[in-house]
């Protein structure tokens, strides 16, 4: 077999540059131009959006804007009620979705024995991730709002959103669990730990940064959500009178208030809210990036 000569190719010696680098082809330059054009469109759009929102929105922001509720008597406008509502929705949604999502990931990664059940769960998780938020909104309105009788309330909105962010948390947790080395599991089980004890003391702490990243991404999704909340959480903008009673009252988040301002053509206020939203999104993005970066370097070091 003289044909089976194996040429040892090192990765560094792989060909990465064309031998015709000097030759100019018109079609090549045209396509290169097109690639650069499209990439710069994508970047310009982002810079344009951020720039425009900040230029129009920052002058709207004042202490009054951030710390009062709208008052028709004084003719003032403020978003503190909406900020509080957003916090309520985030906390309740995460309280419901995190245990369910993490539990589902643990089941899929540790308990499930493969086969049809796992395939069905993974298919439905994908499906859930693909359903648009307006459908969640309709479902939440009919099921939580009407059938369970919760009406327009923060609880209805949070329940709806927890179904929506469930796939996100499940998937990131699953990824985090997969990166925990098998030897950790064997080690813990080998010295006599039971499965649940192993999961509780070894797996979850090791996978924690991944889980937290998932939760932060979920917060980003909740903050930006509007269509699913319009028919479920309603549009209340007042500060809560009692702490727990508020859960059963209607409360519009920042995005809902932005939409309402837009409908009433109060664009100045809308831009003010947009700035607040963008700052939150930027902070969440940075935090998620920081955590995943820290997590990666930790893994490399150990």
């Amino acid at each position: 077999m003289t044909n089976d000569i194996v040429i040892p190719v090192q990765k560094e010696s792989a060909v990465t540059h064309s031998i015709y680098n000097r030759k100019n082809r018109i079609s090549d330059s045209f396509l290169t131009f097109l690639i650069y054009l499209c990439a710069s469109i994508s970047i310009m759009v982002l810079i344009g959006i951020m720039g425009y929102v900040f230029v129009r929105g920052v002058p709207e922001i004042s202490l009054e804007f951030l710390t009062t509720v709208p008052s028709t008597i004084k003719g003032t406008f403020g978003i503190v009620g909406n900020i509080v509502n957003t916090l309520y929705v985030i906390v309740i949604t995460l309280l419901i979705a995190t245990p369910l999502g993490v539990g589902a990931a643990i089941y899929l990664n540790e308990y499930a024995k493969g086969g049809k059940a796992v395939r069905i769960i993974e298919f439905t998780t994908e499906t859930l991730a693909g359903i648009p938020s307006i459908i969640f909104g309709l479902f939440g309105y009919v099921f939580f709002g009407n059938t369970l009788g919760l009406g327009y309330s923060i609880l209805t909105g949070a329940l709806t959103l927890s179904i929506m962010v469930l796939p996100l948390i499940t998937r990131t947790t699953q990824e985090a669990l997969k990166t925990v080395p098998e030897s950790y599991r064997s080690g813990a089980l080998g010295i006599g730990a039971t499965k649940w004890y192993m999961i509780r003391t070894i797996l979850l702490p090791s996978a924690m940064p991944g889980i937290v990243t998932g939760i932060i991404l979920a917060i980003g999704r909740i903050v930006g959500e509007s269509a699913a909340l319009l028919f479920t959480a309603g549009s209340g903008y007042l500060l809560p009178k009692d702490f727990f009673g508020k859960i059963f009252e209607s409360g519009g988040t920042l995005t809902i208030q932005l939409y309402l301002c837009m409908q009433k053509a109060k664009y100045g206020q809308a831009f003010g809210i947009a700035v607040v939203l963008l700052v939150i999104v930027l902070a969440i993005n940075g935090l998620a990036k920081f955590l995943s970066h820290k997590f990666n370097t930790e893994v490399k070091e150990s």
Partner: protein
Amino acid sequence: MRPKSYSIFGGHGSKSGVEHAAEVIFTVCGFFAVLAVASITLYMIISGTPALFKVGILDILFGTIWMPAAATPSFGILYVILTSIIGTALAILIGVPIGVMTAVFLAEVAPERLTKIVRPAVELLAGIPSVIYGLLGILILNPLMYKIELKIFAGSTTHQFTGGANLISAVLVLALMILPTVINISESALRAVPQHLRSASLALGATKIQTIFSAVLPAAKSGIITAIVLGTGRAIGEAMAISLVSGSSVNMPLPFHSVRFLTTAIVSEMSYSAGLHKQVLFTIGLVLFAFIMLINVTLNNLLKKGEESHDK
């Protein structure tokens, strides 16, 4: 498949109650997604079908007159369905080439330093709430469209002026919104193409650009198709960004007409509708849900095919 580890206490009948409880609880959590999808499907069908039979399936799906508040109301949603299909298709036509080209830039052309700036920017684009896209659409795109409209239809007596809230504006916003999805997924598809394909093509004398367009892109085809399907799903389901940008009357989906999508029909009328009108809105939701399920099943098949070809 990684080798499974088992507790040395397993299988001896010595499992404590806590162990059993944990397993049962996690299993329930696992099947929660199934329960959610099943109940969403069930509720969409339950609340969407009554109107189909009350109005008549053909009248509702193929009727072209939408007058829910008239004395003899008429609920034809053909134009709404067509708008969603055409609007999504146009958004894909605009968004996918730009997205794929940007992915090529990130994965193949750009120097490391530029990639480090561009990729976070794309991620940010994905995180911007959809209402903000809508706000900018109203204030930037609509006035622009109105100017163009005034020029084109200057002498026309039959044209209904929309103030710029038309199909084109909505399509542009949608194209922008699917960009991050398309870029991210195509980029990872391009990066998954093995290096030896590029080396072989370059060694045969192809230029870098020729390599990209005739060796790398075809190899990443299935990933790019996945990106397109996901983008379609995102575009057809988007509601808040386009609800005010697209105008809000039911019309033939022509470029300068004020149009209504499946999603925007629900958003704009849900708050004041009642009775049969509300049921028809749920039927619109059901139609949208049917489209989404179709896309999901397509996507699932695509991913399965991709896995099979990797296994070979």
